[in-house]
């Protein structure tokens, strides 16, 4: 079974958490600045990481910068702890930082994630690290980055509102089922990273620290604890978090976010919790 056993063991050849101390300090400065200006994108000097862009290079650098020897790390990908990327990143930090890893949300002090926020309510002292492909919420609406920066500075978000208007006019509801833009602290429009709209309300007034890292785009942004995070909407078309109206086949939950799984070639399908830890907990495993 132990195909690559050495990778699970601490490797003394690396500096703690892979990055050198100067780089970590640079990233921490960006994080502190991001926390001081909730929702505002801070540029940082993203490094080459031993994984491709789009696999979480931003998240992994943020995690490396905040990781301490006593931290307990959980990594999820699409809500699951057992997918390739989640397993690789967990093993990576076990090897280069010798930290304890877990799959249990309750036990984790740092949770690096792609696409989901755990179902279990986060607590004070926990840190969520999001992997962000595109940090700019206006990028599909305004192609010039200099102009998007100006719009952020002026707080002019009518473009995003117009996009929402168009969605409702065309299809009767918001067109973004994931990465639905949010207003942070009533000031900055922010992309919550590609989490489903279902998870947007979990950002609002959360006791946990939310850090967002975009490696390719070289931006870090953050939502400090207990900060208002409101999904963009209209007064008469309030934002609605959407979930499939089914029960989880495995644990029977009717409140968690579900993945649809095609079961056979006859169109058979089943729905299971996307958050594997939550599902296991419900089943008493």
């Amino acid at each position, binding site marked *: 079974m132990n195909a690559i056993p050495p990778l699970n063991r601490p490797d003394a050849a690396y500096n703690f958490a892979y990055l050198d101390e100067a780089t970590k300090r640079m990233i921490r400065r960006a994080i502190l600045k991001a926390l001081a200006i909730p929702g505002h994108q801070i540029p940082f000097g993203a490094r080459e990481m031993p994984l491709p862009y789009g696999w979480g290079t931003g998240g992994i650098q943020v995690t490396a910068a905040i990781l301490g020897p006593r931290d307990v790390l959980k990594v999820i990908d699409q809500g699951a702890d057992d997918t390739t990327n989640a397993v690789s990143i967990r093993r990576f930090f076990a090897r280069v930082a010798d930290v304890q890893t877990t799959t249990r949300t309750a036990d984790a002090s740092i949770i690096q994630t792609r696409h989901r926020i755990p179902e279990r309510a986060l607590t004070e002292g926990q840190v969520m690290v999001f992997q962000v492909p595109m940090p700019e919420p206006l990028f599909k609406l305004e192609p010039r980055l200099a102009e998007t920066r*100006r719009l952020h500075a002026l707080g002019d978000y009518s473009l995003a509102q117009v996009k929402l208007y168009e969605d409702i006019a065309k299809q009767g509801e918001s067109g973004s089922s994931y990465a639905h833009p949010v207003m942070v602290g009533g000031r900055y429009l922010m992309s919550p990273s590609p989490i489903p709209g279902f998870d947007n309300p979990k950002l609002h007034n959360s006791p946990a620290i939310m850090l967002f890292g975009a490696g390719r785009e070289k931006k870090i942004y953050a939502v400090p604890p207990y900060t208002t995070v409101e999904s963009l909407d209209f007064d008469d078309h309030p934002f609605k978090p959407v979930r499939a109206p089914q029960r989880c086949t495995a644990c029977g939950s009717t409140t968690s976010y579900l993945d649809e799984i095609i079961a056979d070639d006859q169109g058979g399908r089943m729905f299971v919790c996307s958050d594997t830890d939550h599902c296991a907990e419900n089943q008493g495993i």
Partner: protein
Amino acid sequence: MTAPLLESSGLHLRFGAVRALDGVAIDIWPGEVVAIVGESGSGKSTLLRVLAGQIDADAGSVLYRDTDGVTQDIPALSEAGRRSLMRSEWGFVHQNARDGLRMGISAGGNIGERLMSAGGRHYGRIRAEAADWMARVEMDPDRIDETPRNFSGGMQQRLQIARCLVTQPRLVFMDEPTGGLDVSVQAKLLDLIRGLVAKLGLAVLFVTHDIAAARLLAHRIVVMRHGRIVEEGLADRVLDDPQHEYTQLLVASVLAA
């Protein structure tokens, strides 16, 4: 009519060796329609853009008295201040509708954008107001979800006007609003603008090289040449009894059908 809405004086602007503006002064009073006429390159569009705060002059002052009676120094105003004026108290109608519209966004979205940037967050009301304004510029409100690409040039221009007027500005800048349209469409559009301006009591500053359009719309006409104002006065006076030789030439060169 106690004080001018917009006061400017001593405007100078050079593009290299060319004096685009050479000591221009112009005031606009509430509810007044002023036409700037002149040949291409006389500096009329440049003057419009300087007054609207889109480009800065080398020297001179532009003062605008806002709704609260506060005098805003346009050249000294921050970009945020200029943008906020531009989306609340001012409107700008471009010659080419493509410059003033979002071509990929529906007619309703185009009109609604200004309401949304002014803080409108009620979809139903924004949509109702957009439909109302489409009717007011004589467009079919049933086409509210079509993009401007589906509309003719005249319709696009109407849409641009609706988009400008929806937030009820006090001062509208128009740069050749009827340029590039055929004569019958021009006539209808001029008629529409005249009706709206009278009903809403707008102050309008528009640039045109079309003397007929100026006669139809304007209360007052300013004639520009080589970056200077060579003559100004009431529209009928300037056109019927031109004093400056250049104005005489302009008026004489109008083709009669």
